[in-house]
C-alpha cells in the first residue's frame, strides 16, 4: 500500500499538467480561465492526499484555503477578460449589459 | 526533505529565466512578473538550505520567507500603482519608449 498515495499524487499532477495543455493552447479565453477550475479541483485532491501521506494535518486547511480562492480567481478572470478587448475598439465606458 | 539538489537546480533555473526576461522584456507588467519569479527562486533556496541541517524544515527560515512573501506583494502593489500612473501620464508601458518607436 505504500506506493498508492505517492502514486496517486503523481498521477493527479500529471493530470493537472495535461489539462494545462488546454489552458496553454486556448483557443478561447474561456479555455484559459478554466485553469482556475482545474486547479481548484485537482490541487485540492493533491493536498488532501499529501496530508494523508506526510501526516501533516494542516495541509487539509491549505486545501480548504485553495478551494475558497479558486472562486475568487475565477471571478477575477471573468471580470477582467470580459472587458479586455473592448477598450480599443468600442466605448471604454461600456457598462455590463 | 529527500532531494535538495533538485530544488536548488529548479531555483537556479527560475532565477535565470526571471533575469533573462527582466532584461529583454519591455512591458513593465512582464518585468514585474519576472521580479516576482526571481524572488520565488530566492525563497526556494532559503527554505531548502535551511532544511538541510537537520532534515526537517527550519522555523526561522520559514518565518523569514513568510515575511518576504508579504513584503513582495506590498512592493508589487506599489510598483503596479507606479506603472498605471506612468501609463496615464506618458501613455507608455515601458521604461524606454524611445526604443519602441525607433525601429
Amino acid at each position, binding site marked *: *500500500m505504500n506506493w498508492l498515495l505517492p502514486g496517486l499524487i503523481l498521477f493527479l499532477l500529471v*493530470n493537472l499538467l495535461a489539462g494545462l495543455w488546454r489552458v496553454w493552447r486556448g483557443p*478561447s479565453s474561456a479555455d484559459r480561465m478554466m485553469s482556475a477550475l482545474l486547479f481548484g*479541483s485537482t490541487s485540492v*485532491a493533491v493536498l488532501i492526499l499529501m496530508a494523508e501521506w506526510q501526516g501533516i494535518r494542516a495541509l487539509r486547511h491549505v*486545501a*480548504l484555503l485553495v*478551494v475558497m480562492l479558486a472562486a475568487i480567481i*475565477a471571478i477575477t478572470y471573468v471580470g477582467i*477578460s470580459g472587458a479586455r478587448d473592448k477598450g480599443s475598439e468600442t466605448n471604454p465606458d461600456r457598462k455590463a449589459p | 526533505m529527500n532531494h535538495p539538489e533538485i530544488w536548488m537546480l529548479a531555483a537556479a533555473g527560475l532565477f535565470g529565466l526571471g533575469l533573462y526576461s527582466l532584461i529583454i522584456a519591455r512591458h513593465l507588467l512582464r518585468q514585474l512578473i519576472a521580479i516576482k519569479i526571481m524572488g520565488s527562486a530566492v525563497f526556494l533556496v532559503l527554505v531548502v538550505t535551511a532544511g538541510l541541517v537537520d532534515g526537517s524544515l527550519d522555523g526561522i527560515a520559514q518565518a523569514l520567507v513568510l515575511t518576504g512573501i508579504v513584503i513582495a506583494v506590498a512592493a508589487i502593489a506599489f510598483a503596479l500603482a507606479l506603472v498605471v500612473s506612468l501609463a496615464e501620464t506618458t501613455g507608455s508601458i515601458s521604461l524606454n519608449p524611445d526604443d519602441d518607436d525607433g525601429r
Partner: protein
Amino acid sequence: MSLLLDAFAALLLLIGAFFYLAGTVGLIRFPDALSRLHALTKADNIGLLSICAGSALMAGELRVALLLLLIWLMALFAATVSAHLIARRSLRDAEDSGADAGKSPS
C-alpha cells in the same frame, strides 16, 4: 476488518483518480469550450468526492471527515459559480465577435 476498510478506501481513491482522468481527457479532446467546461467541472467534482471519502476512511476521524466534507461542498459551490460565469462569458464573447466565435485574438 481493518484490511477490508483499507482496501475500500484505496478503491475509492482509485475511482476518484479515474474520474480526474476522465475530466482531463474531456478537457483535451472535446471540440468546444462549453463541452470542455462541462467535462472538467462534473467529472472532477465527483472525483474529489471519491478522494475525500477515501481519505476520510483512511484517517478514521470524525473531525477530519467533516473538514473534508466542508472542502468538498465548497469545491462544488465554487466550481458551480465559476463554471457558470465562464460559460456566460464564453457565450458573450462568441456573440460579440460574430463569425469568429471562440477565437482568441492573442
